[in-house]
């Protein structure tokens, strides 16, 4: 699969899943816009690693939870490149609290970054894809359909993101834009270490029929496929990447030997 000559924006690509996607695309020949918000050093490292693969990288700071910053981000891409071929809505945030402790501020913070940003970025991206088509993939999580401790507002935001993906897929289809999402179980990243205690990571490993946790490269491989022409007829879907966790009863019965 080649992405030679394509331009991809990966939001939140300094670290973790976003970084792995940026490097995967770069290895297939795409130039990358590396977006970040809080971790400049990581973003600049991703850019250096992208460039080492022989393609161009542009680092742009923007808080996608702020609509005005999304305007600035796309104005910069429009002015510099005049086009966009791939948008990956990866940037995410969240407030890990029990249902009873979620206040308006925590709700809005999470929803603005995890859902509203994906709509606004898709609107802007579609304009830069005008006449050339494109691909949009958003990163969801299994928390959209399964209940995780202290994950209420993030889980709800991811469910909304998956619904948004379906609407975008239909509305943007006539413009040659393929829209899909992926939902992964717990992925081994810095963010996961931050959000969950060590015990949950071990549990996820135990509960995964595939025998190991999902790593960022697993996600990047599927996202790259969804952005290829081979996936042209897949629209509005959320592809689950979980090593079989969600189709088994391992959470109840333990891993089968």
């Amino acid at each position, binding site marked *: 699969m080649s992405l030679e000559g394509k331009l991809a924006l990966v939001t939140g690509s300094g670290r973790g899943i976003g970084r792995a996607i940026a490097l995967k695309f770069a290895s297939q020949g795409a130039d990358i816009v590396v977006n970040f918000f809080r*971790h400049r*050093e990581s973003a600049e490292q991703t850019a250096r690693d992208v460039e080492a693969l022989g393609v161009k990288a542009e680092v742009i*700071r923007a808080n996608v939870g702020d609509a005005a910053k999304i305007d600035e981000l796309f104005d910069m891409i429009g002015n510099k490149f005049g086009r966009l071929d791939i948008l990956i809505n990866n940037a995410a945030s969240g*407030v890990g609290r029990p249902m009873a402790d979620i206040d308006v501020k925590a709700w809005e*913070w999470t929803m603005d970054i995890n859902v509203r940003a994906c709509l606004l970025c898709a609107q802007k991206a579609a304009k830069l894809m005008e006449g050339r088509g494109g691909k949009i993939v958003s990163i969801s999580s299994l928390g959209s359909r399964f209940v995780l401790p202290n994950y209420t507002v993030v889980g709800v935001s991811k469910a909304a993101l998956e619904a948004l993906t379906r609407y975008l897929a239909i509305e943007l289809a006539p413009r040659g834009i393929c829209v899909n999402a992926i939902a992964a179980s717990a992925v081994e990243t810095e963010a996961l270490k931050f959000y969950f205690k060590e015990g949950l990571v071990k549990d996820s490993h135990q509960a995964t029929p595939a025998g190991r946790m999902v790593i960022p490269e697993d996600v990047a491989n599927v996202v790259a496929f969804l952005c290829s022409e081979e996936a042209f007829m897949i629209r509005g879907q959320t592809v689950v990447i979980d090593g079989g966790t969600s189709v088994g009863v391992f959470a109840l019965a333990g891993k089968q030997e």
Partner: protein
Amino acid sequence: MTIEEQVREIIAKITRVDKSIITRESTFKEIKADSLDVVQALVAVEETFGIEIPDEEAQKFQNFGDFVTYVENKVAQGQKV
């Protein structure tokens, strides 16, 4: 208004505490700022002063005074985003 007074006002507004209780020695916990409050304060301060405060630096702040000192130094350097 000094930089310290401006940062104090921003934090007081976000955490809804009386700004008079925020001293240079106050920790974020004492100001009742949770992790979301801290991020929102960082963003508001960045926009007010046209500077950038990476998380790697912010995590080193032990108290309000550290935060203010960092902002004062960044503003003095004239670093723009």
